């Protein structure tokens, strides 16, 4: 029995597409399986992990596939969040309109900041991404009438669907869960499509050898900019979803700590691994949930764990899993 199962598992792990289907099935089944064994609170936490994992995935697109280490993804996350919150509270948009507005705002911001940032490489690139996110963090913090500043901008979410008697609403936790995972899975599907596409292969070429890429006729600037905008879009969706989940937006989510956390999640999960960001985000959020109540200095444990993983498992959790399955 085991003899026939192992190669199957291996083929799933090695094939991104199969892995994606497996992940989708598990995610769809979570609300059915979890209540049997655990507290339903874990369903909510799982959806929160998935939302945050998209922010890590956007770091992964840049760092893992284009070789650009961004410490500013929280900027696009924040634009997604505020896009939703401002569209609902100030413009009176519905759920879909505010969602679209949030995605548009973050993607546009990515296009503007990216057109400057991707001209740079390595530490210069990292620094400019931090600077962009700091500028808008302080803008959000001080522009109180619009952003709410420190207090944030709370809102009550409009219905997903309103047909008179029949309503689908985020206030229903099951509806909210499936609303969130639909968009999370959609994002991962787009990332998968991108990685399999000619453009995704060009990403890897640019990461591997920028000069050679130009010599084979690749427009590296345009390729990096497209990657940056796509990563900004994914971070934006993540921010929109967290705004719907938490029913508010706040400047604190735009601080570069948040970007840094997403980088750590990515490294722990495995840089350049398709679903690595989910593993990294999942592990560290679960640790936070479990440890932060019992010990104030739990971040020491997280820090030690990160150091150990970076030294002994440079390919992160997904690298470790692949290694274990190979043996």
């Amino acid at each position, binding site marked *: 029995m085991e003899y026939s199962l192992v190669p199957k598992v291996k083929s799933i792990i090695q094939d991104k597409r199969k892995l994606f289907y497996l992940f989708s099935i598990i995610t769809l089944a979570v609300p059915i399986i979890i209540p049997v064994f655990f507290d339903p609170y874990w369903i909510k936490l799982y959806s929160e992990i998935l939302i945050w994992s998209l922010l890590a995935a956007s770091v992964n697109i840049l760092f893992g596939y284009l070789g650009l280490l961004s410490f500013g993804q929280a900027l696009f996350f924040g634009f997604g969040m505020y896009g939703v919150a401002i569209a609902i509270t100030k413009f009176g948009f519905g759920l879909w309109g505010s969602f679209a507005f949030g995605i548009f705002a973050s993607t546009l911001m990515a296009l503007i900041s990216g057109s400057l940032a991707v001209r740079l490489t390595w530490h210069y690139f990292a620094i400019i991404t931090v600077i962009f996110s700091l500028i808008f963090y302080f803008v959000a913090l001080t522009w109180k009438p619009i952003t709410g500043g420190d207090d944030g901008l709370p809102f009550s979410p409009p219905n997903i669907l309103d047909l008179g008697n029949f309503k689908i609403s985020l206030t229903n936790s099951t509806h909210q869960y499936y609303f969130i995972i639909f968009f999370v899975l959609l994002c991962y599907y787009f990332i998968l*499509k*991108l990685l*399999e*596409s*000619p*453009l995704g*292969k*060009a990403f*890897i*070429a640019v990461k*591997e*050898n920028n*000069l*050679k*890429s*130009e*010599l*084979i*006729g*690749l*427009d*590296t600037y*345009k*390729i990096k900019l*497209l990657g940056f905008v796509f990563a900004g879009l994914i971070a934006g969706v993540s921010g929109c979803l967290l705004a719907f989940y938490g029913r508010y937006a706040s400047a604190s989510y735009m601080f570069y700590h948040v970007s840094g956390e997403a980088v750590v999640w990515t490294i722990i999960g495995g840089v350049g691994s398709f679903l690595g960001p989910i593993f990294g985000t999942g592990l560290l959020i679960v640790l936070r949930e479990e440890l932060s109540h019992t010990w104030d200095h739990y971040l020491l444990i997280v820090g030690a764990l990160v150091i150990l993983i970076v030294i002994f498992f440079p390919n992160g959790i997904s690298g470790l899993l692949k290694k274990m399955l190979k043996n």
Partner: protein
Amino acid sequence: MSEILKITNLSKNFGGMKALDNVNVNFKKNTLSAIIGPNGAGKTTLFNVICGSLKSNTGQILFNDTNITNLPTHKISRLGLGRTLQVKSIFNNLSVRENLYIALQSSRGVFRLSNSLSCEKEINDELLQISDLFNLKDKLDADAGSLSHGDISIIEMAIALCLKPNFLLLDEPICGMGPSETEQTIKIIKKLSKTTDILIIEHDMEAVFSLAEDIVVMSQGSIIAHGTPEQISKDEKVINTYLGEEEEV
């Protein structure tokens, strides 16, 4: 009209140093040309300026009568000017197959989410043809970076050829190779020269004189001689500045 590359009054300064000093030279079609000269003569700088990796200070470069002076590198590559580097440069962490694949994909455009089936088949067919030409068939699935220096140099030429260049600049293609690898590479270059115009920079005089039909000699950023191998081997200026030293040894 019969010139593939026309360079007029080309200069490149690094601070006060004149790396290229008013270079005027034309390279003919259907010819395997070579640039020789002592270290620091400006040969690689000339390649860098032609390919757009460096911007020139003055002068003009016409490639097939198109002005390519100071265009971005990728645009020049797209026009059909291929190049290999002095320090061998390929995609080390990808397999040989992936190295060739991305170059073939690049020539068809990468800003798309998928290839049509016929395009995919075309790429794979061409990939096999090129790997056949360069004897790379049994190495296709190896990590490119793990192969020998000679193999890497050959892969670099194969990548350049994936873009179907009209003109191929090879910067020291046999540098650092053993005798058998050198022989094999020279054979490949000869084979390529039947279909593509080639310009090589090379220090191995035996190789240069066996390959080239047209030789340009550079020294201190200038062209000091230009002619057939016989003319160059008898040119006094060249013997004094470059070839002579070798004969004494």
